[in-house]
């Protein structure tokens, strides 16, 4: 399978790119073009509003690319992904406030804490079946939020506010909105690239093998438990870094930002964009985070629209909006885990 193809339902195309548009989208330069565009926007318009929206969108892209490792590459449905961002954001906020450190220096602690969180959530649950896992991760997500709301160290319901900036060298403050935006864009670009590379690595192939057929993967000598745990930990790291950026961007962290809805939105970005396809996921994340800004008046209906879209996409286009292109020969679906019955197969 390629990095892109999601499920057995995905039609697999083996055509080479045929027109300039497709070539553009498949081109290796696309990432650079997108980065250039992201860097260029503030030179056209740098109002606080635009910078805020763009920074938030960039952080959301980071989250989506992290969740893509777990859901897209490895096929583990995580409904509580936002908890990792919460762990990252709270750790960064608490440590930087307690020691009056710039946020940048909290990154090592954040990494340790998020990896720990990934282990704590992953270790007992990854032996579970996929549907149990989904609910358990949802439970962990809620536990994390309620705990943050109840503890004194996390500031209770008000959360933590007045978090120091990300870095200050002399008179140059990286916290200025425009500078912070550029920092965010470069961090996110780096992390997205890393996620894509990870997907193409040996480990990435193992993940997809596990996703497609766990038993076969096990039989072929892949330590599936370890491989899944690694997917979890990588996802956690991405979420944790997202949390640091979140803490820096809003200078405040409150439990309300980590409700289930947020996890669901990140999941939607991954699913709508195209599970496993980094480019699709980035696009999905941009659409999900920017669309409400463009259609403010329809804010009431956006979750309804997202819900219906999820169903439609799953029923008709499980590979997401961004049609994934397979460069490997088509494989005959190897039979589902559940035998299909009449009426079930169309």
């Amino acid at each position, binding site marked *: 399978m390629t990095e892109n193809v999601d*499920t*057995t*339902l995905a039609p697999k195309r083996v055509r080479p790119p045929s027109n300039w548009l497709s070539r553009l989208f498949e081109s290796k330069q696309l990432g650079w073009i997108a980065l250039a565009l992201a860097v260029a926007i503030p030179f056209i318009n740098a109002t606080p509003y635009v910078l805020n929206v763009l920074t938030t969108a960039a952080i959301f892209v980071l989250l989506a690319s992290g969740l893509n490792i777990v*859901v897209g590459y490895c*096929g583990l*449905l995580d*409904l509580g992904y936002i908890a990792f961002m919460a762990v990252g954001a709270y750790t960064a906020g608490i440590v930087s406030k307690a020691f009056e450190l710039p946020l940048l220096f909290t990154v090592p602690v954040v990494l340790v804490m998020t990896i720990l969180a990934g282990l704590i959530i992953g270790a*007992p*649950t990854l*032996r*579970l*079946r*996929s*549907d*149990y896992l*989904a*609910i*358990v991760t*949802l*439970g*962990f997500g*809620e*536990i994390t939020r*309620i*705990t943050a*709301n*109840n503890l004194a160290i996390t500031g209770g319901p008000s959360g933590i506010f007045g978090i120091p900036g990300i870095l200050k060298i002399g008179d140059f403050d990286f916290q200025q909105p425009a500078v912070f935006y550029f920092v965010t864009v470069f961090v996110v670009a780096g992390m997205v690239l890393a996620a894509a590379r990870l997907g193409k690595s040996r480990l990435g192939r193992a993940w997809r093998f596990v996703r497609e057929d766990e*038993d076969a993967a096990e039989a072929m000598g892949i330590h599936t438990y370890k491989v899944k745990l690694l997917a979890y930990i990588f996802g956690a790291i991405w979420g944790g870094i997202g949390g640091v950026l979140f803490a820096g961007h809003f200078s405040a962290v409150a439990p309300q930002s980590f409700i*289930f809805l947020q996890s*669901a939105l990140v*999941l939607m970005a991954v*699913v709508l964009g195209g599970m496993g396809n980094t480019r699709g996921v980035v696009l999905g994340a941009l659409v999900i985070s920017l669309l409400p800004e463009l259609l403010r008046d329809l804010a*009431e*209906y956006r*979750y*309804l629209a*997202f*819900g*219906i*879209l*999820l*169903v439609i996409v*799953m*029923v008709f286009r*499980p590979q997401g909006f961004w049609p994934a292109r397979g460069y490997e020969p088509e494989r005959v679906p190897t039979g*589902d*885990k*559940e*035998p*299909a*019955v*009449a*009426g*079930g*197969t*169309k």
Partner: protein
Amino acid sequence: MMQLIWDGLFVGSFYALIALGYSMVYGIIKLLNFAHGDLYMLGAFIAFAVLSSLGGIPASLSIGALLVVLLLSMLLTGTAGVLIERFAYRPLRGAPRLAVLITAVGVSFSLEYGVAALAGPNPKAFPIRLEGEVFNLIGARVSLPQIVLMIIAGLLMIGLNSYIHNTSTGRAMRSIALDRNASLLMGINVNSVIARTFFIGSALAGAAGVMAGAYYGKIDFLMGFIIGLKAFTAAVIGGIGNIKGAMLGGLVLGFVEAFGAQWFGGQWRDVFAFAVLILFLTLRPTGILGERVTERV
């Protein structure tokens, strides 16, 4: 202490009613219907819409009116469940679990925010209120409405149990749960039986929704989310796919929560419930009553 047990029992019977639908659907087609809790919400809102359109109902008639509305709401919620199965789940019946789960999340969102768009996002006061005598029963405060509701819940569960064990459709359901292909070969109309399963499960959740609305007096479009999770927990505790297990699980979870809230404080109640879920899933994923080998390759 008796109060604690009674409160746990009462809340637990709500969990049990909802857990039944979860468990039936899961037992038969291995589908975790994430939107099940939202059918509970839908049932409450259907009853709300019916009652509001009727206008004022005299308090003396409220129990009778409630029963009529309960049946109507069960019927409509059941139909909604069948439609959801037909258009969202059936096309994916051969698909990987991940795809189906994501669809279920989508259905859940559509129901929640669809109702929010139609009825408005504000909580609604339920038009019928069950008020009644409070009396003391071996050290616990028990009210008449509580007893009425528990009797209704009990009757529904007993009815379901005998339906599954004594009718041909019930036999068909059990047979599909064991082996779907073989059932098909034996001449069972699998699709119609699955549709019927969805109808019953959704109708029960709808009934629970109406009862909650009438008892607590407030409904809102997100009321199904947490209780759906709790019902799933109850189903897992009892042994998912097992009807008696779902009832037992509901009651056990009710107790466990009541005691948890007592020991750790009310704000930790949900944390406690989810922790119990995770413990059960990791240590005894088959639940208290479950003995079936669930993972088939």
